[in-house]
């Protein structure tokens, strides 16, 4: 009774063989479950240089160690694989109910190798697992397929289903894996790997209990947080437009200081992530016009249209992922949009609003709702899709793409009908859409060198909608992480509200400081980036949500829950050592498969090379090469190459647990 089940399920799609495997306790003590368990299995099993879309790649679905143990906001599941988009380590996480469902079937993870001859899905319940034909749902979008599979498999308990849409069936490298009718593990191209294996879905209907060491203690910690969150209610008379003012204030401040993260709960409960739509535009956080513009271009006459109030006005119900006490999600009525083609959509996240709003100079909110549903159903990553459309618009503006090539689409900034038409082409891989369906790096390689200036990415992954020229700490994570381009690994702002220094001896205390100091490479800033990423790996091993992390370790007591769930008695420093181990193993995985970590450096535009000439970020550039070197050095990796040093691998005992790797 340690919070984890100690078992995984291995499915060979070529032979049809399904086998249980016991994982030693020591692996969990060293790497937790979730992403750590995934890294352990994939590092050992995938041969160096294996084709990400071939039989040797392994696709894993893993649950978090804390999922189902009585903790809260710890219900995330993760997909892991060798990424076809970056060539290195691939992972992506998602909410909904799929994470507890994995454990209720008796496993911490389900891993697929090989390639099926025909489309199949895996069904698992208490009695066992079997592969079943999926030809009847192949070709359906993710929502239709989920509904069909739910209907045919709902005997006693409603099954939890992870499923791909048509984008992944067509092996789009920017496709993800969907669940709960509109959630998606979107990043790293995991959908393409699932599509390449002809695995349409994983259907889980187990009802086994999830146990842990000290359930009473687990609940005691949860209740303490619940009392605080219950009090966080934004008065109804406060308008969403106040967030634009808040953004201007934040963006204009020369100094930063730690804040109490519990306030994030108030904003999340009211608006969800669209709370950042206006704040991001006015603070400089949202990249605008394919990272080439500023709020001078995407000014109030534009951004007022994506006000979070206008979004929640359509919200017919709130949506919580499993075990979440914040509930940032929602379901919105869109019957009046696009001639009633869809009745509703999951509330568009900030990332989607920014990727199809300011990044494209688009002020048509209805088009964002519609595109959100198109992408959720196709199972295509909205961040990457938005970044790719922005690339296409700039190529069109500069004559690299012509009307003949676009099939007559006038790809101009903010042209919502053309953007919608292009997204449909990308999903269907039709005409110009085929060129763009694999993201900006692949498209730029096909179009030739002049287009590469407009291809904004890090290591092939289009970046999240947060500007590294405002927050250089974010730039380090975009560039120096085994999963490049991720806004979820960390930032200076996250660091200030996570309060890690309260439980981690080496995490720098964030007092009041000059924001300009963050632009100067230093060991102190590097310690922050190391702390951010170690903590993220602990959270991803536990099933934790990024928005719980931002409540602060003083409120969302991750380390205390881990001790209570497992019976361990580890300190904050020891858990961060586990985070460092997971991160180092992810980096070893990337290196094993031939990735040069220096090649993940973010595009020049993201680093402010050259800097913007107007707006809040005017003149800002990030000394990213020096910052990457310091980050790697503080990790115990070679500062010039990013390769984990042998003494670091040995000190973390990674040489021991990766013995016998393929």
């Amino acid at each position: 009774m340690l919070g984890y089940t100690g078992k995984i399920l291995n499915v060979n799609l070529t032979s049809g063989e399904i086998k249980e495997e016991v994982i030693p306790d020591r692996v969990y003590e060293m790497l937790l479950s979730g992403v750590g368990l995934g890294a352990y299995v994939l590092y050992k099993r995938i041969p160096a240089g294996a084709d990400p879309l071939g039989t040797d790649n392994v696709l894993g679905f893993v649950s978090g160690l804390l999922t189902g143990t009585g903790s809260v906001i710890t219900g995330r599941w993760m997909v892991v694989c060798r990424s076809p988009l970056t060539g290195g380590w691939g992972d992506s996480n998602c909410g909904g109910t799929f994470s507890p469902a994995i454990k209720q079937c008796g496993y911490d993870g389900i891993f697929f190798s090989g390639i099926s001859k025909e489309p199949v899905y895996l069904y698992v319940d208490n009695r066992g697992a079997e592969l079943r034909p999926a030809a009847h749902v192949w070709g359906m979008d993710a929502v239709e397929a989920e509904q069909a599979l739910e209907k045919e498999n709902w005997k006693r308990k409603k099954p939890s289903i992870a499923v791909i849409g048509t984008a992944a069936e067509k092996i789009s490298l920017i496709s993800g894996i969907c669940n709960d009718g509109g959630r998606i593990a979107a990043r790293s191209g995991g959908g393409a790997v699932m599509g390449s294996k002809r695995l349409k879905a994983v259907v889980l209907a187990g009802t086994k209990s999830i146990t842990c060491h000290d359930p009473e203690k687990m609940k005691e910690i949860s209740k303490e947080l619940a009392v605080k969150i219950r009090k966080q209610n934004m008065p109804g008379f406060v308008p969403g437009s106040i967030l634009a003012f808040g953004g201007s204030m934040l963006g204009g401040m020369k100094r930063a200081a730690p804040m109490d993260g519990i306030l994030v709960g108030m904003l999340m409960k009211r608006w969800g992530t669209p709370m950042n739509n206006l704040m991001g535009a006015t603070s400089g956080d949202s990249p605008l016009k394919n990272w080439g513009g500023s709020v001078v271009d995407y000014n109030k006459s534009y951004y007022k249209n994506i006000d979070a109030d206008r979004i929640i006005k359509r919200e017919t119900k709130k949506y919580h992922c499993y075990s979440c006490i914040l509930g940032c999600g929602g379901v919105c009525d869109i019957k009046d949009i696009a001639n009633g083609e869809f009745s509703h959509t999951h509330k568009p996240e900030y990332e989607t609003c920014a990727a199809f709003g300011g990044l494209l100079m688009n002020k048509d909110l209805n088009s964002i709702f519609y595109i959100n549903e198109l992408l959720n159903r196709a199972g295509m990553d909205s961040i990457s899709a938005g970044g790719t459309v922005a690339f296409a618009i700039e190529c069109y503006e500069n004559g690299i793409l012509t009307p003949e090539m676009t099939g007559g689409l006038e790809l101009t900034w903010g042209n919502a009908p053309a953007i919608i038409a292009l997204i449909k082409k990308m999903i269907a891989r039709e005409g110009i859409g085929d060129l763009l369906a694999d993201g900006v790096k692949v498209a730029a390689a096909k179009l030739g060198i002049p287009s590469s200036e407009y291809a904004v990415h890090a290591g092939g992954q289009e970046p999240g909608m947060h500007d590294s020229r405002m927050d250089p700490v974010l730039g380090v994570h975009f560039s120096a992480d085994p999963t490049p381009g991720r806004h979820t690994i960390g930032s200076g702002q996250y660091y200030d509200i996570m309060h890690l220094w309260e439980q981690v001896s080496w995490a720098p205390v964030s007092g009041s400081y000059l924001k300009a100091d963050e632009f100067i490479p230093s060991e102190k800033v590097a310690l922050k980036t190391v702390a951010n990423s170690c903590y993220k790996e602990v959270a991803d091993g536990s099933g934790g949500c990024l928005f719980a992390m931002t409540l602060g370790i003083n409120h969302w007591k991750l380390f205390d829950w881990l001790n209570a769930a497992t019976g361990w008695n580890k300190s904050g420093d020891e858990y961060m050592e586990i985070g460092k181990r997971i991160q180092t193993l992810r980096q070893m995985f990337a290196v094993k498969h031939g990735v040069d970590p220096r090649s993940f450096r973010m595009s020049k535009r993201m680093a402010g090379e050259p800097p913007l000439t107007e707006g809040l970020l005017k003149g800002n550039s990030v000394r990213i090469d020096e910052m990457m070197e310091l980050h790697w050095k503080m990790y115990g990796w070679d500062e010039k190459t990013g390769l984990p040093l042998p003494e670091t691998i040995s000190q973390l005992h990674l040489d021991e647990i990766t013995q016998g790797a393929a």
Partner: protein
Amino acid sequence: MGKGIATINYAECMACGCCVQACPFSFLDLMKTDVDVYHKNYPQLVPDHKCTGCGLCATACPVDCVTIQ
């Protein structure tokens, strides 16, 4: 667990859905209510449920707001 059916104390419930996922028969579901200002979906027994009072939902609740009564 005592005799009875799943009963939710909405003053304490956080709408996290742990009880819903724990029910082996899906007799609980998250449904719209007027419990709070956000009109969140809170757990309720579905119409025509046959709750056995097994208590798995109560065990799963992180804030102890589900009881069998």
